[in-house]
């Protein structure tokens, strides 16, 4: 009961400050991204406009605003491993597992993130990549810190994590758009795009949109067969191999 009360108080007092009542009207260009056999990444456009709160009687909102868009992919359990030099060879000796780690994470913002808001506020809302690694972990604080940073670096090198601090462009005081190219290595699954509107270092509006990255047609059929009917799938692979081998022999026999 007391917890509920506390929650209520937090909700009441953290409500948007008076005078900055704004809402976000936004959209995303694709609600599904289809993985076909020629899938080589896809470009997405996010756009929106900042409008007065409905029913507030305001005619217009006053800027300047900052917009931050956080795109999150499906979560996976992921490990980061470290190789060390033992007995003359390099082998994986230490590892830290990160449960429910985003498989894809990109932040687009209209300005440098640390100029937009305080680092604590950004971390609380999981806007900085590091926030995803710094969740409680049985490996202990120091190891989580080191391995988490390396994991984020590895993810960034593969284009799965990224921060584009000039990714959001304002076309007028209130209308913005942003483009994001999803790489072909982006894993299939449900994605969430969370858009935050900042003013004077505070979040004054937020909205989230979902889109899905899905294998379709033949790719979907293959991937589903492999996981749902593994025995039949394996047998099909063997029959295909035997047939291809036989056909090759027949075609090229002199």
């Amino acid at each position: 009961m007391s917890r509920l009360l506390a929650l209520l108080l937090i909700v009441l007092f953290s409500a948007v400050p008076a005078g900055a009542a704004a809402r976000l009207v936004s959209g995303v260009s694709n609600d599904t991204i289809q993985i076909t056999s020629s899938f080589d990444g896809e470009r997405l456009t996010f756009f929106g406009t900042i409008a007065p709160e409905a029913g507030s009687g305001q005619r217009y909102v006053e800027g300047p605003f900052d917009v931050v868009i956080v795109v999150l992919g499906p979560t996976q359990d992921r490990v980061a491993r470290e190789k060390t030099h033992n007995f003359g060879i390099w082998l994986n000796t230490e590892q830290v597992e990160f449960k429910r780690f985003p498989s894809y994470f990109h932040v687009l913002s209209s300005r440098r993130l640390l100029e937009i808001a305080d680092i604590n506020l950004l971390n609380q809302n999981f806007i900085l990549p590091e926030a995803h690694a710094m969740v409680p972990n049985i490996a202990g604080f120091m190891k989580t810190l080191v391995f988490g940073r390396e994991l984020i670096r590895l993810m960034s090198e593969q284009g799965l994590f990224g921060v584009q601090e000039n990714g959001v462009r304002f076309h007028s005081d209130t209308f913005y758009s942003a483009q994001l190219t999803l790489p072909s290595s982006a894993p299939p699954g449900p994605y969430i795009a969370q858009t935050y509107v900042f003013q004077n270092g505070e979040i004054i509006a937020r909205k989230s949109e979902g889109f899905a990255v899905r294998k379709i047609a033949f790719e979907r059929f293959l991937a589903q067969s492999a996981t749902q009917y593994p025995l039949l799938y394996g047998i099909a692979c063997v029959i295909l191999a035997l047939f291809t081998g036989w056909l090759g022999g027949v075609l090229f026999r002199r």
Partner: protein
Amino acid sequence: MQIYLPIAELSVNLFFLVGIGGAVGFLSGLFGVGGGFLLTPLLIFSGVPAPVAVASVTGQVVAASTSGALSHYRRGGIDLHLAMYLILSGILGAFGGVATFSVLRAAGQLDLVIAVGFVVLLGFVGILMLQEAVRALLKSRQGVVVRERLPNQHSWIHGLPWRVRFKKSRLYISVLPVLAIGLFIGFVGSLLGIGGGFVMVPALVYLLRVPGNVVIGTSLAQVVAMMAATTIMHAVQSQSVDILLAFCLMVGGTAGAQFGAAAGQHLRGEQLRGLLALLVLAVAIRFGLSLVLAPDDVFSMAVTSVVR
């Protein structure tokens, strides 16, 4: 032209896949080996995750060995009785290999074991083959007629119990070494994604004294059956067989093998074996360097489970 691989979940150039399939197929046709020991490393070095590479190449090896096995069968070059013993023990070994594969993958040591396995196995076989080929080349250059050891010469292997008569191979030997060879090749082959023909052939010739006219055919028949079983086991156990990847490799491989076989007729046996030995050693050295040299990045990552 990019093609999306649904199990590996990445897109790769189609011509690259068919190309390396064809190149490796050419070499496998030239030397009469399956080519798995070249394809698996090539795929791993070009970015395909090791589990997917190993499991998919297993399927490609089936295709690459089928046409050879069929043509040997037509010519009566397969000792089915001997092959049956090898296949049964090979499948048993593959069970162990696939189970070990899953355990190692979860523990993060699969890449290490694959690298060490390639270094030890290929290094050992490569050195033996090179020695033998160089000796034969030198002797033939001096004009000395190479006297092969006769197939009926006895060794300790012929003193073992449970002897069985293999009519086609004209052998009356214990089944123990036969089963041991099958078991070993099944285990190593499924773990490393290789057919093991280049281990099987010398083992049959030098250990069991199987006559030359049935060695290749019997080995090929064993590779087809054992790798087929391994493909199914990988599909069930780790679900990492990418049928599209395997198919692209098969198409390139079966075509390349035909040209390789034609080219092989212009080279002499010792020269071929010498070249194959160099190739095998090169792969072993490449893996050895990756173990010994400081890696570019001491950190790596892997997905342990997918939460949807």
